[in-house]
Each structure stands twice: as C-alpha cells, then as structure tokens.
C-alpha cells in the first residue's frame, strides 16, 4: 500500500517486523473501518495514509498548531498527539464529513486562505456547533486560539465561526468585530 502509516511509523506487514502491529477497528465519519497498523502509529498518520483521509493536516507534529484536530468520541483532540490505538473501538470525525452548508458559510466569510490550518479550524467550529450551551457562552477568540493560522489574521476565522453558529440558530455572546467606528464589540 502506497504511503501507509505502516510505512510512515514503522515497518508493517511484509517488512522486517521489528515493530508490533495490531488490527485496529473504529468508526470513521460514520463508517466502520479496520486497518492493521503499528502499535506506535499516530492517529494522524493512520487517518492520512491508511484511511485515505488526507484532509487532516500536520502543521507541527507536537500539539501546538491544531491543524490536525479531529473529534474523537466527542473530544476535540490533536491527532498528532494521539496514539492510534487509543482510537480503537471509538468514533472519529474528520474534516471530510463537514456539512455542505457549514462549508459554504465558512467560505463566504473568508475563513480559509491557504487551507493548511483550515481542516483543524473546521473541526473546532464543528465541535462548538454540537455544543450550543458552550457556544453561547464562550469567547470565540479564546476558544479558537488552539488553532494557529498564518494567513487570515483570524478575523475571517472568527467571522466563519459566527456565521456557522448563526446558520444553526445558536445565539452567541458579543464578539469582537472589526468595523468603522467600532472599538471591538463587547471586548473590554
């Protein structure tokens, strides 16, 4: 198999066998999957190279940038820091399953530029969409700070989060918003 996590994280079937492998079953974007992967594989690599879901990106590989964010059983995690075996038997959701109306709302507001941080940002926003009670009370700028973006300056990202929440009818507390004569919404 081209480009597999077997390849990336250690020799798998057919190689010297120095690394132990195991058969991993989990639910990915609603469908059951089963893959033989090395015990020390990262979830990020299994998704990208074994499950044909390369939408999830690696920005730093050390839990700093959030580009690799996925939702694991309802938890927003950095998949570069999650050993794949921890996802066995659990439910993983990635950017590939984003709803079309959410994606368009984010596109119109300028949430994505180069797109490398985008999958992680989409997943952070989706996590929030599933938790209206948190979404209504959180400071979006604080909440989104787990996702580093080098292109947008974040105003487009915040606008995207607001648009997505609005689309789902989730009320928000005031957000800092640029505009003429505006000194930053409700932010002190």
């Amino acid at each position, binding site marked *: 198999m*081209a*480009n597999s996590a077997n390849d*990336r*994280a*250690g020799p798998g079937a057919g*190689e010297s066998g120095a690394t132990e492998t195991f058969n991993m079953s989990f639910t990915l974007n609603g469908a059951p999957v089963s893959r033989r992967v090395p015990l020390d594989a990262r979830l990020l690599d299994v998704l*990208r*190279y074994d499950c*044909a*879901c*390369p*939408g999830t*990106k690696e*920005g*730093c*590989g*050390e839990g*700093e*940038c959030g*580009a690799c964010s996925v939702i694991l059983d309802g938890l927003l995690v950095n998949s570069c820091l999650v050993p794949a075996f921890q996802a066995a038997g659990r439910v993983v959701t990635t*950017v*590939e399953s*984003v709803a079309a109306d959410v*994606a*368009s709302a*984010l*596109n*119109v*507001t*300028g*949430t*994505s*530029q*180069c*797109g*490398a*941080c985008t*999958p992680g940002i*989409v997943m952070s926003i989706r996590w929030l969409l599933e938790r209206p009670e948190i979404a209504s009370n959180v*400071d979006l*700028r*604080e909440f989104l*700070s787990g996702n*580093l973006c*080098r*292109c*947008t*300056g*974040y*105003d*487009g990202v*915040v606008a995207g989060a607001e648009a997505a929440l609005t689309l789902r009818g989730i009320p928000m507390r005031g957000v800092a918003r*640029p*505009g*003429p*004569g*505006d*000194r*930053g919404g409700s*932010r002190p």
Partner: protein
Amino acid sequence: MSVGADIPRVDGLDKLTGRAAYVDDVAIPGVLHGGTIRTPIARGRIQRVVFDPAINWSDFVIVDHRDIPAGRNAIKLIEADQPALVADEFRHKHEPVVLIAHRSIHKLRDALRAVRVEVEPLPAVLRPDMPLTPELLQHGSDNVLKRLAIRKGAGEPGREAEFQALFDSAAHIIEGRYATGAQEHVYLETQGMVAWQEDGRLVVRGSMQCPYYVVDSLAYFFNRPREAFRVIQAPVGGGFGGKEDFPSNLAIHAALLAEKAGAPVKIVYDRQEDMAATTKRHPGVVRHRTAVDASGKLLAMDIDVVMDGGAYVTLSPVVLSRGCIHAAGPYACENIRAIGEARLTNSVPYGAFRGFGAPQTMFAIERHMDVIARRIGMSSVELRRRNLVRDGQTLATGQVVSDGVDLPSLMDAALTDARYDERQKLHADMNSGAGSHPYLRRGIGFATFHHGSGFTGGGETYLASEVWVEGHADGRVEVLTAQTDMGQGTSTILSQIAAAQLGVSADLVRVATPDTSRVPNSGPTVASRTAMVVGKLVEAACDDLLKQSGIGTTKSIPRDPSGAIKSWHAANPGKRLIGRGKYEKPAHIQWDDKSYRGDAYAAYSWGTYVAEVEVDLRTFAVRVTDFVARQEVGRVLNPTLARGQIQGGVVQGIGWALYEEVVLDDGVMKNCQMTNYVIPACADLPPIRVFFEESPSPFGPQGAKGIGELPMDGPAPAILNAVCDALGIEANEIPLTPERLMTLLEGR
C-alpha cells in the same frame, strides 16, 4: 460586474472539506521517501561521511555530489554560488551533503541518524558586523554580497561638500539606529516536493510559488533543455516568500533521487527541519542621520542599511535594493544618500519574505520620524504632514509621484478611524498623574508608508511575462498563467478579471493549475505583482481572444462571447483558440539599473496604520488592543479576499514586532519548533479594522494595484511608536519581547 464583487474563493470549498490535494496528500504507488543529511557546523570542510555498518545500505538510494553532472553543482538564482550538495567546503550548518531514500519512512528516519558527517572546522562569520580577517573571507574581497547606493540632490556623487553643508547649517541633526530580527515564515504546510520520470521527462510536483523558477534551476542543474522537465504546482499551504527560492533546492534533491532510484521520490520536511534549514527574513540594521530645519522639514537624509545575507547570494541583492528604495519612506526630501550592503555570514541563507526588504527599512524610517518629532518637539502627525510626498514631488529614486493620492488626508482619515486624539488624552490620564494605573500603560502610534507593486526597475521588462486565455469548444474560458494560489486568492481574482473583461459570468471562467507543460511563463508569484501586472495581462489576453473569436472589444454593443467561442470552434474543428497577452513596458516608465534612478515601480500602494497598545509593567508584555489599517490600493478586486490578506499581513507584522524571535546558534535557528517560536494566536489580537481607499491606477486591471506585501510594512513601526508613546522611551529594536523591554526599562 464581477470585479469588485465578493465572489467566494473558488478554491475555498475544496480546502474547507479536505478535498484539496496538497503534495503530501496524494498517494503515489511505489513512492520512496527522501531525506537529507546535513553539515554539523557553520563552516568547514568535509573530511568523510561515515555510514553506520549496522544498517543495510544496499536497501537505500544514496546520492551525493558525485552524482551531479560536472560543473553543474549549483542552484541557479542571481548567481550560481550555492551548491545543491556540498562537495568539500561548506558555508553553513544544515547544508545538504547526502540524500537518501527508502520505501519505508521509518527506516529512512533510522538511517538519517546513522550517518555521520566528519568535518574540519573553519572560522565562521556569525554576525554581519564582525571584524573581518583574511581567513574569514568567502566572497570577493570583503564578503559583501551586494552594495548599492541611492542618491538624490546633494546626495549625488561629487556633491559631498554641499551635502555636508546641509547638515552643518540645519536646525536639528537627528540620528538613530534601528534593528530588526530574522523572521521565520511558518507557512502552515511545510516544504514538500515529489519527483518522478514520465515520458522521458522529469516531473516535479510540489508546494511552490514560482514553477518557472523551478524549471529554470532544474534545466541549469541537469544541463538539459527546459522541455526535459515538467513542474506542477500542488495547492500551496502558505508561502509568504518562503516558497519563492527554496523550492528549487528541494526540487533538485527530489529529482536527483528519483532519477537514481528510477522510482518516484517524495521529500516532505517536518517542522523542525523546515524551520532550521530553510530561508528567513533578512535581519537588518538601519542607521539614519537626518538634517531637519526649524519648521520640521527634512533637508537631507543620510541612510545606511546593512542586511545579513547569510551564506550565499540567493536573492539578497534584490531584497537589499527594494529595502533601500523604500528606505527614505513616503517623504519628499530633496537630498538623500542611502547606502546599502548585504553581507555574507555563515548562517542559513536569508531569502524572500513578504515585503522583501521594505519592512526592515520602513520600520527604521517610521520609528525615526517619531524620534525626530519627539526630539524637535513637534507632534508626529504634524511632522509627517509637512513632509509626506505630494503629487508632482519625487521619491528617493527621483520618481515623480503622479497618481493623485492625497497622503495627508489618508493619514488623517486613519487617525480619525482610530480616534487618535481622543485616545491620546485618555492614555495621558491613565499613564501619569494622580489617576495613573498601578501597572498598566497605554499608548497609540502610527506609521505612514508605501510599497511598490511589481518587480523593481527593469524587472518586469526582463521577465517579459505572458498570459493565455483559452476559449474551449463548450464556450467556457480558461485562464492560463504560472501564478500560484497560496491562499492570497489568485485563482479567484484572475477569474473575476477575465469574466469582467470578456463580459461573461465568473462561473464560465476557470483558472488553470500552474503546470509548465501547459501554462505560459507569466513570471513568479511574488512582489505584489499578480493582481496588477498579471491581471493586466489577463485583460489583454481576453481582448485578444475576443478579437480572434470575431467579437470586437467595444463593450457597448450587445454580444455573446461564449456563443462566439462555440461558433469559432464549430468553424475551426480541432484547433485551439488562445488569446495572448504579453508584457510591454509602459512607454513613460524610465529606470536606470546602474544608478538606481527613475521609476522604481510602475505604481505604489499607500497606507497609514494606527496601533493602540497596552503594556503590563509587571510582565513587560505588550498587547495590541486596537489596530486600524487604512490603505489606498487602487481598485479593490474582491473585498473579502483583500481584507483577509491585509488582516493576515498585519498579524504577521504584529508577530514580527512583538513575539517572533529567531534565536540563532552557530548560524541556525535554535528554537525551530512552533512551541518556542511564537506566532500570534487569535486571543492575542484585537480585530484588525481594515479601510480601503480606491483611486484606480492606469497600470492594473480595472485600476487595481498590489496589496500582498503592503500590510507587512506598517505594523511594526506603528506598534513600537505606540509603546514609546505609552512609556516615554525610545525602543528601536524588534522583536520587542518582554525580555528586551525589561532590559530597556531597567537599564535606563
């Protein structure tokens, strides 16, 4: 009308749904993973390369300098001084020595640790101001990679006494030294390239800004015609200049391995390798000495610019030239002497980074203007009002400004947006006197600046860019250029420009993926040139297409271009209908490359940025609490994209000003991780308030000018001016980290 409309980014949905296939996202059957073995110290000679016998090396493809065609071991850029793989002497740490590739990335990683490069050390230059001894010389007689001078009025050669007299008789002579640090690009997608052989050609696909630069360097390196290569741009996860020159090195490496292996080879750097081994923004030191009369008029400016070029020439000469051309700021001073030097050090070569030398010199002049104001007891606003260039006056190269822009009113509008006067009074109450805050101080500052669109001087003429617009048999239109979309929105705006020019709806137009086997060379995606220069060529190519398909270009008559294209194909089966646009120098643009006199750029964009900051005297942390970015950029092609690009550039500027410190150790970045090289996060920032003024320029499509680099120029000086306003100090070095501010405050 599609120009000026908020068309959503055409590549946006692919990026938001994970469908966009970046270089590392495509599974290639039989691909090998390539890695690089590098030099261990800043300067020396290779003695031997030791391969650990515990590894079965016959499993690996191994390439070193002996695999390179004789006499061709060089990355061709302005000069060809940088080897692709070190043969003997080397000039910086992490220079590539050996390339290896293997089917398993796991085995590759083990193997990379099992090769030792043994070297004989040589003395290294680790700072551009280090005194030179003969054994440190590595370039010419003085290690100066490029020296240039911009001279105006009494600053011209032979008029030294006159120049001196201006200083002797001036009411004030103000001097200052302004230093800026290196900056790492931190594009979120690291450098990556894959190479394979196909139909007798070497094909390279990867993350890059300039596919034709890559073709040119492959052709030079392998000593084969350009047609022996095909370079395809993958979606680019951010560039900012970091993918202007460096991808040529990586493409050569991947191609060398692929050819030796007879199999596809992919090299994708991890973040640490990317930060440690690739280019950064040139660190700079600018000294100003300015003669000012009693009314605050700038009489004469003596400017000295030194940039650290790193170990090879790369792009330093042109970075230095853009830096020096912008060094005197947007002011009408009649007598200028600006001397620039880019010096060799044994550091990883510095390269292109958004702004290309101008942010360094603009930081200096805009801090210096505040220093002058303070020392002569005039307000920063008044000092600028008296000196900002007006129509009919000239900039440093003697270029007459004639685009009708009113800079004082641009400045006033930005100050009004920021409520400058009102905030200054509030801050004064908070910062001192009875009601002062125990540990918080607030300040407000601004910068007025400009940025030239397109290549400097004769650069565009030399490039002779070409754009095609093809009418397909189904009546759709395709724009063919080499312009890459690295997030700035190229594909969207070029399709908007074409749709507007042809008079069709934007969804009938698509923009081709840059692939040198099918797009013409429309030049690199750099220098704020895509919208203005290439956009104008798209218009010309559209006109040509209309002409060929039998429709005139008069927009007043009703017409159906799509139908005409279909009819043309019905009448000419099997033929291609291509409209062409080729760059022609506007007749009245004059530039002399030797004396640096004349029209340095066809057009400039102008800005005034205002920053408000809060300084915490307990932690010495500076926080930007409000930011106004007002600019005149000609016609805005797509407001959402333009605003986003300005906001992103401003935030990169905020990072450079306050947070981003490249810690050098033996000439390389020691803090080469996103954990310890800190870029701004969402919560660190206020909303960036963007305002456009649109004064259409004759040089761009529908009047557009460049905006990509402009927002990098203003933030750092505006922020430092605000900090100085808050604390009553002179802080002239960035990044202004808490450590640096603490030293400044405690040292006084």
